[in-house]
């Protein structure tokens, strides 16, 4: 065990090297262990599916809605609790949620790039603001 010093020194360098992006981000205030401060809808308590399911599967649901509405003309969504919603990103999702305070904030926190939905679909809040 005469090489103990070298082994532990090497391990320390290795650990420092692979964790340096996290330290760098922490030092520059780009990352934190705190969850993102999401703006929750004031007027609604429940989403179209339980929060866990929405967190994990909202992308598949949005694609399913898109296919249903555009290709099958099926706009009616019956939620898990029996409530009926319109399958609409701007109408239903953004009717409650704020794009900037909810979608973008969580995407930024998770390091997920902004999806191309917004190349065509507009955020009703920012559009309303942009009209003089």
């Amino acid at each position: 065990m005469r090489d103990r010093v070298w082994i532990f020194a090497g391990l320390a360098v290795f650990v420092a090297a692979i964790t340096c992006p996290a330290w760098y981000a922490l030092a520059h205030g780009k990352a934190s262990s705190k969850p993102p401060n999401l703006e929750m809808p004031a007027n609604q308590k429940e989403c179209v599916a339980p929060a866990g399911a929405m967190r994990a599967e909202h992308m598949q649901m949005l694609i399913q809605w898109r296919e249903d509405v555009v290709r099958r003309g099926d706009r009616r969504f019956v939620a898990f609790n029996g409530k009926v919603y319109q399958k609409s990103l701007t109408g239903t999702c953004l009717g409650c949620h704020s794009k900037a305070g909810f979608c973008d904030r969580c995407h930024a926190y998770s390091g997920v790039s902004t999806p191309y939905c917004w190349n065509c679909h507009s955020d009703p809040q920012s559009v309303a603001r942009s009209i003089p």
Partner: protein
Amino acid sequence: MRITRKDFLRLSGLSLLAAGCKQAVQSVTQPASGARVASAQPTRWGMVIDLAKCREKDGCNACVHACNTAHNIPQIANRAHEVKWIWTEPYASVFPSAQNGYAPQSYAEMMVPLLCNHCADPPCTRVCPTQATWKRDDGIVMMDWHRCIGCRYCVAACPYGSRSFNWEDPRPSITSINPDFPTRTKGVVEKCNFCEERLARGLKPACVDACPQHVFTFGNLADPNSEPRQLLRERFAVQREPELGTGPSIFYLV
């Protein structure tokens, strides 16, 4: 267990027969799958445009304006890049084969509203390599901008010039964006969708509601008692270039 040749043949014959019977029973008891089910009341949306009424208010662009605001259509000055769903052109260029040289000036120079003909046999949908455009069961020639790859085959195939390509990002050229309808993006083809999104809410197309002269009569061409069918029974109507065999759903009362 040993099986004789005779037993084997008998067994396979019976299995084939059973499989055939199952198919036959299924095809009788179950209608064709999914969206292809023919509804009890077939629908073919169509429109009759009364040019006599339109002539009374020549130069009015209410229909075009209503469509532009409802569908976020960019106003691009460069004619090579322009996007249009409903627009107007002189009578002489809309019906070039109907010119006899002696029509009064008011006729030949009158502006005629044009839009996608929502053909019965549309050439544009046939050439689309991604099925981004297709004919719905209700007769609307629909587009899926998510799927359009911008190859412009449909633009070339449409004999009526109803399709426009987005050569540039349309958003900067839209004066005020209607958030209820998506804008398009650079690189996709677009055209009139017969206000499919309004029909789903039980409304008539935006141009129909906007016209102060009630020039447009919209309805189900498959229903013999519908308003457009009544008009077509009573008056002589023309379609744009019917000899091409596309079967336009837009009729003009001249």
